[in-house]
């Protein structure tokens, strides 16, 4: 990482590495990323995915307007193993966005900038624990069957 002392030694402008607009993809992929950068990137990706899911969620519940048979029939597809695994993965997105969101609020309102990297690591640990716990809750019937 560059420190401020580097900037004081008058580097000619032509030698300072600047962002190359034409290679924005590779520039974005290759700059050095600290925990905060990753948190920001993943917060965006999970956020976009979650708003997409809300639209999908309203759509998938819309058979409720057509009564019992229509709804139960639609739900049959969503309770298959494939959809349950997808739901579990969705929970990972919800978890990251929630925990990192709490981290952002702590950074903004509770002096969290001083320990935001620890908070980021903690959110991963807590997130993985909760993700596995949810997996057990959702698939406990199948998991317990393996040990019988």
């Amino acid at each position, binding site marked *: 990482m560059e420190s401020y002392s580097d900037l004081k030694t008058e580097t000619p402008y032509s030698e300072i590495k600047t962002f190359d607009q034409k290679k924005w993809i590779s520039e974005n992929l290759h700059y050095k990323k600290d925990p905060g950068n990753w948190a920001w990137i993943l917060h965006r990706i999970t956020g976009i995915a979650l*708003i997409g899911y*809300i639209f999908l969620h*309203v759509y998938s519940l819309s058979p409720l*307007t057509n009564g019992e048979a229509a709804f*139960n029939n639609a739900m049959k597809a*969503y309770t298959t193993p494939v959809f349950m695994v997808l739901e579990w993965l969705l929970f990972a997105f*919800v978890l990251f966005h929630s925990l990192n969101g709490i981290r952002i*609020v702590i950074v*903004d309102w509770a002096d969290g900038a001083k320990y935001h990297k620890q908070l980021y690591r903690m959110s991963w640990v807590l997130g993985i624990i909760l993700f596995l716990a949810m997996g057990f809750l*959702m698939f406990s019937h199948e998991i317990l069957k393996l040990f019988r």
Partner: protein
Amino acid sequence: MYRYRSSKDTGSKSWVLQRITGLALVVLMIGHYILMHYQPDSGHTYGAVLARMQHSWYRIIDMSFITLGMYHGLNGIWNIFRDYKLRPWAKFSIISGLILAGLAFTAWGYNIIFSIPYISGIAGGH
């Protein structure tokens, strides 16, 4: 002295609201997950939904959930666009599109909730 050319809105209100709605959504989401996954069929059969929706509180909670979720999500998308320099017409069309999509799907969600009947005789009543 420099003046804002197009708007005096610095976005600080939207910033505060994004945090408040975010925290509210975390709380609602915990309830939602307990409700939907603690018992396997609690969210996945018509009977379970019908029984729950006899309590008006559940309807109010679901309606605030979708409203807050839509606001938080679409405001978040707009925040992403705000990171880039946009031409006024692009700004206008993106905001309009987001607001229209938000209103349409919120209304659709409300309509789904209202379409579930209140049935006299089912425990809970209203």
